[in-house]
């Protein structure tokens, strides 16, 4: 996943008109994904060494798993690892409203001297 992240950021960065150094990368990561934030943070630090992202900080915002039950017309929070069905009617987890996000929101460039006009 770290490699996939770096590949995507690199593809985006290289397509930019200018390539200033990146200071921070902001992610939104859902709880219902295979990404474990601490593990990703560590792997990112290791795997970006010597690349264009060397030293860049990874800032991860987690989003909770929220499901929507149609019979009850209500949102609920499944208990990951234990129970995913609706606590009211025991129906299965049909729609996921939040928790599947794997998004690179934005980057913050390093402080760079303003270009001289």
């Amino acid at each position: 996943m770290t490699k996939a992240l770096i590949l995507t950021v690199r593809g985006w960065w290289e397509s930019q008109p200018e390539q200033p150094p990146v200071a921070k990368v902001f992610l939104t990561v859902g709880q219902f994904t295979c990404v474990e934030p601490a593990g990703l943070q560590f792997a990112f630090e290791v795997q970006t060494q010597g690349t264009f992202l060397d030293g860049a900080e990874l800032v991860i915002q987690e989003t909770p798993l929220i499901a929507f039950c149609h019979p009850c017309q209500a949102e609920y929070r499944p208990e990951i690892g234990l129970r995913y069905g609706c606590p009211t009617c025991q129906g299965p987890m049909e729609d996921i409203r939040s928790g599947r996000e794997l998004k690179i929101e934005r980057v913050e460039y390093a402080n760079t001297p303003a270009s001289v006009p």
Partner: protein
Amino acid sequence: MHQSTDTAIGLNLLHANQAGADHNRAHFDEWGITCLNVMSSPGAGKTALLEKTLAALSPTLRIAVIEGDMTTELDADRLRQYGVPVIAINTGRSCHLDSRMVAGGIHTLAHEHNPAELDLVVVENVGNLVCPAEFEVGEHAKVALLSVTEGEDKPLKYPVMFREADVLLITKIDLAPYLDVNLAHIEANARQVNPHVTIIPVSAKTGEGLDVWYQWVTSTVRQPLPIAAVH
């Protein structure tokens, strides 16, 4: 004077992989091939299932296998006995296949065989219940395997793969009588996270349930595929 700039990206973390997967799928569609991505934990019985499937279906369907064995050609050699093209991808230490690795396999396949003459490409993913679920490789359907020896709670503990699966094979059911395991509990747990998944209990050893699996494969292959242009 110093300034700090923020720039919105708004891309999926897997954007680069997804682009590759879409490209692979466009190739498959162009050739009229259905691609299945077979995933499970290590040793759940992917290769054993493929051996049976090749023996039963390769007379009627033209099948090739892309084998994501971690480091050896062992699984690929087991499958080559059935006289079908088997492309082994050396995934090194990667814990899942990604679309780029599979693209390499597709290019080898296209180079050594005539892909337009194939009906079905089965990708055996690296044994892992976590990561492969997030990495599309260009498949038309995801096949998950869970063996009865792994325990009833695995769909709850590794929900993403079971959520994403189109079909779930509960494997090694010949062993169920020797274990403290209830097939109905496995199915109920899988349906909590994926109410619409097709569940097929099978044994590659005794052959039980395999005819249902073969029917699923055959009907999936026969479905007309979306027409997409290769970009």
